[in-house]
């Protein structure tokens, strides 16, 4: 095979870096040379991240990043709305996106193929957490043929400990079966990616992060005692208690769930976002 280059788009915490590692190991188990490249910056749970994987038949010489990928894998349904995930994608390339909706609803269009898989649903049902990396790899194995499902499962066993490996393998298998057939995306309607600008800046460096959420906290004002515990722990300073009761500024809430964990009076609910609602 010619050199295959894949770009992964994810969010901090979804396991994009682990995904490229597992993919590289799995392809290597089939005798191929590989590279798994994480892009490190200032890591922050929920922030958009990219990682790359190269697969070839000889030792890979290129040490730069992947700029013209053969395939793009998107681990989060809402990423496409703020990041141009198809940038540089080769003609006739493949986009595999974690999305619960139809091809049209992905907002992706162009001279490439697109396949969808509801990896968040699979991850929640098999792992109990919205870590979508292993599920999406199962889907990738199906739509690209690389690597074989068995190699992928062996690589997962090498990478992750016992019981965790088994639940991830279950996620991989389900996604392998449930992924949609790739279709030509040239007939779809493109939704331009754009970064939403928050109406009122909270603090100078903060950015609008509402589309990072998979789960959404909600405060029950009746139960809230105004103890300020959530206010202390919120890493995004998205909670306001000036009115004696906690109030969440959803533009700045990334859905990390720390407030839900810390609330001692059970005044915070933490429920799955409906895709596209934020």
């Amino acid at each position: 095979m010619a050199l295959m280059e894949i770009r992964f788009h994810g969010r901090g915490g979804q396991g994009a870096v682990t995904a490229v590692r597992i993919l590289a190991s799995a392809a290597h188990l089939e005798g191929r040379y590989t590279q798994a490249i994480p892009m490190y910056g200032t890591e922050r749970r929920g922030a958009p991240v990219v990682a790359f994987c190269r697969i070839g038949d000889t030792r890979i010489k290129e040490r730069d990043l992947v700029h013209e990928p053969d395939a793009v894998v998107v681990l989060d349904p809402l990423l496409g709305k703020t990041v141009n995930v198809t940038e540089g994608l080769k003609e006739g390339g493949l986009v595999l996106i974690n999305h619960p909706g139809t091809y049209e609803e992905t907002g992706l269009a162009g001279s490439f193929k697109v396949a969808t898989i509801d990896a968040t649903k699979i991850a929640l049902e098999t792992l109990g957490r919205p870590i979508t990396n292993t599920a999406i790899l199962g889907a990738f194995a199906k739509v690209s043929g690389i690597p074989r499902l068995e190699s992928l499962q062996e690589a997962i066993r090498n990478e992750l400990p016992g019981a965790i490996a088994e639940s991830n393998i279950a996620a991989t298998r389900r996604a392998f079966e449930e992924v949609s057939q790739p279709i030509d995306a040239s007939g779809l309607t493109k939704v331009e990616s754009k970064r939403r600008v928050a109406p009122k800046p909270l603090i100078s460096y903060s950015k609008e992060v509402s589309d990072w959420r998979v789960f959404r906290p909600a405060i029950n004002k009746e139960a809230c005692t105004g103890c300020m515990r959530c206010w202390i722990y919120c890493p995004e300073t998205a909670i306001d208690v000036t009115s004696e009761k906690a109030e969440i500024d959803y533009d700045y809430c990334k859905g990390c769930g720390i407030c839900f964990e810390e609330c001692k009076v059970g005044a915070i609910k933490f429920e799955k976002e409906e895709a596209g609602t934020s």
Partner: protein
Amino acid sequence: MKSEVMVGNKAVAYAVKLARANLIAAYPVTPQTTIVEYLSEFVANGELPAEFVNVEGEITAQLVCMAGSIAGARAFTATSGPGLVYMHDTLHGTARYRCPVVMAVVNRSLRTMQPDHTDLMAQRDTGWIHLYCENNQEVLDTGIMAYRIAEDERIRLPVAFALDGYVLSYTAEPVEIPDQDVVDKFLPPYKSFYPVLPENFDAELEKYKKHWSEGRGINDSFTPFAADESFSHLTMANWGKGHDIQWRWKWHQETMMNAKQVIKEVDMEYGKLFGRSYGGLLEEYRCEDAVAAVVAMGTIASTARAAIDKLRNDGKPVGLIKLKSFRPFPIEEFQRIGRSVKAIGVIDRSISLGEGGVVFGSIRSAVYDLPERPLVLGYYAGLSGKEVRVRDIEQIAERTLKAASGEKVDSLAKWI
């Protein structure tokens, strides 16, 4: 022999384990940190029987390695960027006391957290051997070779081997792990010249007792190794006896020059045993009938191979010189290459501010004595971790090739 997909930092840890280093002292610093983590795991779970010394900083890390090495330990440390600069003074000590310490340097820029070679280049004159690696396999192989080179009795000098931060340290790729028994054959146990308990300890002790019993005092010269000229660098016993006080520098320079031969021999023997060698001091890649050559170190050399492949496929007579050993510098090799090419384009991932590219200057100096000198052009690339793409090197190679055919270039040194 098995093969595993691993990051560069893990390849370093495996090299240290296979080399059976038994003294490790290192202080964590990004992007070197995981080397320390992997090694402490190896030591904690009993895979690597070594003394792991927790230190409070890089100066201590280097001093622990230096002292341990004199006493007979095979010592290892690793650092990056600011940690390496903080260690600077003690590096001189390790080299002048001829301690064969091996150090992994995960290159980190002194201006950002991203990779360039400014950190190790700042240690240019410390008297260490400096080797640069382009992929994780070379990192593992070089780590093992480094001990063999350092401990060679003809030189006994410390070795620093470098891998670009992030680009290698955190990038995973397949690495073949050599079998322990073959490594053991290649790398026999280390024997210090000056162990804590030398074989002639009892005899020396008797001499020492006699020295005191004869009524001689602490100011009378006495050393258990009095006959050993080179030991005086530890005791300073020969000071004031008409010695040229420059002798340490002279000895060090001669030893560094001799190290070239040792590096080549070790590389060849490694190749015979493990099937992989790296050309000794430098590797010429597709240089046959080349009119121009590009020089690169570290991961840029790897990316450059892809660029040279493309240009060669288009019929352009340009090759790559992968410079592995920066200190000692392969002067003779560059003179030989300088006779066959018309232009050399040197990529520097560092800069000596106020003059220019360090490798650029060294190569110009090396070819100066040739009756017909090639053109030497400088390029700055990848500083502060700026990405170096295949097309950047194609551009460098094509410009150098144009200059080789007599076309005028706008400047001698160019920023990419």
